[in-house]
């Protein structure tokens, strides 16, 4: 299928181009901040060096020399555009470099730091994404079958209401009720249980116990909207002429829904599920703070507020952008695969579905 190959190549090239440009924009946006922080670090380091010296003939001159040394070491003597370019290039080659101050288990490597937090986000938000997507599609289908019924109306109300609640606010309420009032779940605590202390089974039990409330909250907030969107997609298809024709022919209702309808409604449902799964890895910053969950958002907050550590901020921003751009790309490919009507080229770009 040459057309498919052309499409694939076009989308891939496009995705990479967009990624490169976005990374340059990110690198440029953070450059002022990075410069400010590095200048301050250089001065501090030089001052520490001066204090460490026993006797210095000319302290001011020594200080100047040390500052100059550190500025060179941090590449501050180069013009800004060069620094923007090199930091963007490093990120694009997946070399996130060393953090200025932050550490994770003694390592200052940004990749190591991020890898220390990413699994926690995946544990909570990606698990939640799997659950609420599956649940949402199942309930949405059921509601579409009985469109106009009590279940359907309730789902609409619930979907809209849940979509207008901030997840972290629901989290606060959940903690208020289920942790402190009823005492069913443990208090939010960024410390995770340790395998060494609890043994394998104990560890899993402790993790599940800790995970239950945040997970339930995320699923509760996001599931309604997903079910409702699925339901709308399916009911939209159910009104199509060929479904009417199939029904008129006497095709059983089950087959109409799971055979004909699902085939047409599948592309948007599948692509949105993929986007949800990928985007979940970026975490949800404020919910992570409310639940004291040490994931990506928690890390980003530390990187910005506690340390102002630009390499870490840039690394996290890159991952968030990458997840989005890649998800978008993947969704487009799958869409093209599932829906043969998609044209090659411009139509894929902003895609109006």
């Amino acid at each position: 299928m040459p057309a498919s190959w052309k499409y694939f190549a076009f989308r891939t090239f496009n995705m990479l181009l967009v990624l490169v440009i976005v990374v340059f924009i990110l690198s440029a946006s953070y450059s002022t901040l990075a410069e400010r922080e590095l200048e301050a670090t250089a001065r501090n380091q030089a001052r520490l060096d001066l204090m460490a010296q026993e006797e210095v003939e000319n302290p001011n001159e020594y200080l100047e020399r040390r500052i100059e040394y550190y500025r060179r070491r941090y590449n501050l003597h180069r013009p800004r555009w060069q620094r923007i370019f090199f930091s963007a290039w490093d990120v694009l080659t997946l070399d996130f470099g060393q953090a200025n101050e932050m550490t994770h288990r003694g390592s200052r490597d940004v990749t190591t730091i991020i890898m220390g937090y990413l699994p926690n986000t995946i544990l909570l938000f990606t698990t939640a994404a799997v659950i609420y997507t599956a649940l949402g599609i199942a309930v949405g289908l059921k509601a579409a079958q009985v469109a106009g019924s009590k279940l359907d109306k309730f789902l609409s109300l619930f979907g809209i209401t849940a979509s207008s609640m901030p997840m972290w606010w629901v989290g606060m309420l959940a903690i208020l009720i289920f942790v402190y009032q009823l005492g069913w779940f443990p208090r939010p605590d960024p410390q995770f249980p340790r395998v060494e202390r609890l043994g394998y089974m104990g560890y899993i039990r402790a993790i599940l116990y800790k995970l239950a409330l945040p997970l339930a909250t995320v699923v509760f907030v996001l599931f309604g909207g997903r079910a409702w969107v699925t339901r709308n997609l399916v009911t939209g298809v159910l009104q199509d002429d060929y479904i009417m024709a199939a029904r008129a022919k006497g095709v059983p209702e089950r087959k109409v829904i799971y055979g004909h309808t699902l085939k047409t409604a599948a592309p948007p449902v599948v692509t949105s599920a993929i986007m949800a799964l990928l985007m979940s890895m970026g975490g949800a910053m404020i919910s992570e703070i409310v639940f004291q969950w040490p994931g990506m958002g928690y890390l980003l907050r530390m990187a910005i507020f506690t340390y102002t550590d630009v390499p870490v901020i840039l690394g996290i921003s890159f991952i968030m952008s990458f997840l989005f751009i890649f998800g978008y790309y993947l969704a487009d490919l799958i869409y093209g695969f599932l829906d043969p009507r998609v044209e090659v080229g411009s139509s894929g770009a902003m895609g109006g579905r």
Partner: protein
Amino acid sequence: MVHWEDLKADTVQTLNEFKKHKIGLIGVGLITFMIMIGLLAPYIAPGVADDWERGHPRWGPNPSQAAPTFVDWITRDDYARQEHLQNFEYELGERNNIHRHTLTHDMQADVVPREIFYDFSGEADSYTRRVIEIERPDSDELDGEPGFRVTGGRFVIVDERRDEKGEFRETITTQRRMVIRDNLYSQARAYLRRQDFNYTDPGPRNINPVRTIFGEANENWLSDNPDPLKGQYNITIEIHAVGLGTEEDPGLDEANVHIGGAVYGVFGTDRDRRDIFLGWVWGARFGLYAGGIVALTTILFSTTFGMTSAYYGGWVDEFMSRIHEIIMGIPTLPILIIVLEFYSRSINMFVLIYALLMWRGAARVIRARGLQVAQDTYIEAAESLGSGSARIITKHMIPQILPYAVAQAALLVPIVIMAEAGLHILGLGDPSIVTWGTILTEARAARAVMNWRESWFWILFPGVGMIMIGFGFISTGMALERIINPEMQQR
């Protein structure tokens, strides 16, 4: 210019269609209600945005963390109301040194007041001690006990104070002073011991002073929730001071007693005594301000961008699509946080960033719809008749596109409001205003989540505000989308 006749006809038709969507109508009702609240905020709660700070005198005599007044209507219990006691009796003691206020309070509530406030000010040569004596309805029974020293029905709280000259102003509340708590505790416990009650001793730190004052003297007296003792309370407050006031007019300049209500206001009060409803009203105003501006700029930007892309097509469309993908790829959160943290925390800065970024989702929908419209035959006809592109876009395309842009923008409003509230949790909210995020952040900082009974309203209502606005805009936007395009599919 836009072809107003067409636009008007379309609008009327859409409105007629709209009436069939029940959820959409509820949404419009909610939006109207919230906009009214927002617009009327300066009249409902004048000056609150400026006074929303800890310890502002405006909130002075309010109770702390009192439940909303409607709790009193829906439960069977009778909740004590906020009262400003004015039936004072003032008496000047020997040598003008003791100033005694006597007042009575008839406590008939099932849920006792949250506080007793006494605040006074004056000028004296020296000001040494305060004695507060509370005579309870059960005085007579209790006083009959042999060896019952000062209390029984009577609590005496003596609070020493270093000699101080000159002006003084002080607020004594039952809840804040350790000496009051300790005094009440030891007196109540002494009585319970003598009477051989089977009580559990929570220790002086864990009693609630005002509940002990208004509590029935039984085994529950020192518990978290003693039974209320209804009846008349006589409160005597003595200020010992030498040379208080002037010779012609001896006495305190001012003295006020408030009984803090167990319920207060529409949505209750927070820990710093602020009326949550008054702040909530301003939260609606600022939320709608931010959401409204972003929605308007979204309509403008997304229509301009999407229409240009769709109308010109070809390489223009291709180029603009690339630009659009790039803008889509920029992560909002880190950029937003960095700008707010290191440049400005003003709400206008937040609105600016969101206005610059949020139109991108809508632009996609507009372009897709624009492509369909541009292919419609009458556009071709207009072109062949020699209409200029500006004329075709404004006259033929925009009236068809506008409802889509409006629907997309409506869906954006709750997102903006939630984001603004979330920024407060991060400490990045505008400190000079009060929004729902401000209130929730204060609740979080005060660890309100740890006590359901005392703070559910503090956490609940700001979120309810967000749900009301969110529900309003989402259901309206959805109804609008269904009307203008019944078969619309979304990704």
